[in-house]
């Protein structure tokens, strides 16, 4: 298996190279001028030109791409055009909030969605099944920001139980950290819960019709044992796949959630950088996201071996 892991990790290098070329070229072609944004609305065209030259933005495509690749090869993601800070430092500042949000959302979503899907499959065709599926449709349909605003209005403004916005680092205590994450995680988790619950239900329905389930019942196994030990374990592979694919969904949703709840995460960093045309930051973040996504896929592939001992690499 280790040979497989190493092979997969090495395979990320050409993937990242293609992503790098693609991102750099797209940004080069996209409209927008960071020098004009830095200079401000009242600046004259001459001011903008001087700033563009001082930032090296007037250099040809190949020179800029070559310099960027050279820096990356040396472990340097570059420096933000606007803040003058290293991109790696800006990412480092933002990674904890996003990671916290995603982890809490994942735990919340999985711990709610999987039992929901199992129960819906078990009670197929009943009002419980319909309620679960109704919730799933709602979860898919209502945008994250609407849920976010509603939650903030009820729990922060009206009840005054939780803060409206912001993020408290984990090092300042689990309480404040978690308080800032509850509402965003619920808002972001809605779609994810809907997705996992639906796939769990569908997979469980298929598994529950298998012969070995009937055999288990015939041997006198209890309902809980049948559902969670025999059926769920065999339904796990597609569920884990969807959880993995859904991480991309979470990254996209985090952009909106972080804006609604003013969480200083990577999503907001990306949006701000795109709006300003802060090329080194955009490139750095996109590279990071693609690396994470490739890594998540690897982890999911490896997780299959945990749930299905027949799978070996």
């Amino acid at each position, binding site marked *: 298996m280790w040979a497989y892991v190493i092979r997969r990790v090495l395979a990320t290098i050409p993937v990242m190279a293609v992503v790098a070329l693609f991102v750099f070229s797209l940004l080069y072609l996209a409209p927008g001028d960071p020098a*004009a944004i830095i200079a401000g609305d009242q600046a004259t065209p001459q001011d903008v030109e001087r700033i563009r030259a001082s930032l090296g933005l007037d250099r040809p495509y190949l020179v800029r791409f070559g310099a960027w690749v050279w820096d990356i090869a040396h472990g340097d993601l570059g420096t933000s055009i606007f803040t003058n800070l290293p991109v790696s430092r800006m990412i480092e500042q933002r990674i904890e909030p996003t990671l916290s949000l995603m982890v809490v959302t994942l735990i919340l979503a999985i711990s709610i969605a999987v039992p929901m899907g199992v129960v819906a499959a078990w009670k197929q065709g009943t009002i419980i099944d319909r309620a679960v599926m109704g919730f799933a449709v709602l979860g898919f349909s209502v945008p994250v920001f609407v849920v976010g605003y509603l939650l903030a209005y009820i729990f922060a403004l009206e009840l005054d139980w939780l803060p409206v916005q912001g993020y408290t680092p984990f090092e300042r205590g689990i309480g404040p950290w978690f308080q800032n994450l509850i509402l965003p995680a619920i808002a972001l988790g809605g779609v994810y819960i809907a997705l996992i619950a639906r796939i769990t239900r569908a997979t469980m329905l298929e598994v529950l019709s298998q012969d070995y389930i009937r055999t288990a019942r015939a041997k006198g196994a209890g309902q809980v044992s049948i559902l969670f030990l025999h059926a769920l374990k065999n339904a796990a592979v597609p569920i884990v796949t969807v959880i993995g694919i859904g991480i991309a969904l979470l990254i996209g949703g985090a952009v909106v959630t972080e804006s609604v709840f003013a969480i200083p995460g990577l999503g907001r960093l990306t949006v701000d950088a795109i709006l300003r045309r802060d090329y080194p930051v955009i490139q750095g973040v996109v590279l990071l996201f693609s690396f994470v996504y490739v890594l998540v896929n690897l982890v999911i592939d490896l997780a299959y071996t945990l749930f299905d001992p027949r799978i070996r690499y």
Partner: protein
Amino acid sequence: MHRRTLLTGAAAIGAAAIGAASSLPNVAIAQAPGSRVLKFIPQSDLAVLDPIVTTAYVTRHHAFMVYDTLYGIDADYAPQPQMAEGHTVEQDGKLVTITLRPGLLWHDGEAVRAKDCVASIRRWAARDGLGQVLMSLTDELSAPDDRSIVFRLKRPFPLLLDALAKPSTPVCFMMPERLANTDSATPLREVMGSGPYTFLANERVPGSRIVYERFDKYVPRPEGTASWTSGPKKVNFDRVEWHVIPDAATAANALQNGEMDWWEQPTADLQPVLRRNRNVLMEIPDPTGLMALCRFNQLHPPFDKPEVRRALLGAINQSDYMTAVIGTDRSLFRDGVGFFPPGTPMDSDAGMQALTSPRDMEKVKRELAAAGYGGEPITLIAASDFPSLSALAQVGNDMFKQAGMNVEFVSTDWGSVVQRRASKEPPSKGGWNVFFTFFAGIDMFNPAVHQSLRGTGQQAWFGWPTAPKLEELRSKWLEAPDLAAQQAVAREVQTQAFQDVPYLPLGQYFQATAYRRGITGVLKGMPLFWNLQRG
């Protein structure tokens, strides 16, 4: 590790996490009444820290915390000494000596010296229009000792102190010589001033949080009262935190439940909600407001013809534009607004009938046809990511269409607008014909600072108008000996502007600011962080 052990372990960790979460301690959400920390929501992120490189207002507000100025302005827009102890004028106005107050220190503890100020003035002047005029009239700018700054002028320049005090961007901020010697187009990497607050670089999270600490060695002016950027800068907070909250609804909620103390620019749609909240106060800090304009590209047809631009003056209904931007509350906007902010010294009624006479769209169409407009397409570039700019562009689009013009409406983000407006190419090759924007009234305060009235052709602001008469009048205004003479020339400037029409004036609106009732001492002009108190 066995597969079953791993699965069991993961389940145990999940259960432990849920258990820990259920026993969370409660934390305070709102600010404590006696807190000496002020939490402020700025209009946007502080992306660029150098107040000379950028003209962004948010950077100016940051700079007024960290840097100081030789002169500030008061509520009458008159320059008052700030870092300066005073000045002398000799040799019929051709020798001006400014003396620094004693005991001024940079944040690293070094003394402020006159040569720091000389370098700072030079860097600012390289970037600022009025600064360039000042330097063109200066034979020698020197620092003969640590406290004296000497201007040896070619001829008397009555606006010297106004130039050093002006709050329009870029402001003449003082910084140490080693930083001020940096080229004015190269952003500074270090923030070091002598203002009432120090900037905590290590606590900065770009796009989210900017933190300042009271500079305990700052010596406020001993006399006078704080007014705009002049007077004693007494600081009553130990720490000021700027929290960037891009979502307006979230910012309003954070202010209402006391997580934040002050929101610089509440959006128009949320102002009624905040007005109803008894814990929140709202006021208009800047009486010069924000002036809306539609800028023409004069390099290409049809707006290269003054007749075409003039014809469109008859199509403007300023209240339509302002209603779209700020709503129907007439106390929040003005129409019938010319080229200078109403209520300021250079404002006049000269030529105003062009905007206040009855609107007649058929007449506009006839005048456009007579001016040679034959239905060729005009490219309007609109920023959709700023609601106020988008509103102006939408109304403008309608106005041009009603006037019978063939509009190609290009809706994009502000980042693309600022790039495209720099293009001098024809609209069909990536250029443009018109765009919309706002200027703070203080940036249109007089002909000296009024960027969009410049008529220097290829050297002028985007749109590149060539208007020799306007330039001639600007020079005349700069030489005017007193206020009455300046006002007389300003009337001529406005009259000429209605002939040349470098842009269409679209009205003035007032941006409210909102803060918690417990905060007192909020100064007029812009967000300034001295004189403030809690309770």
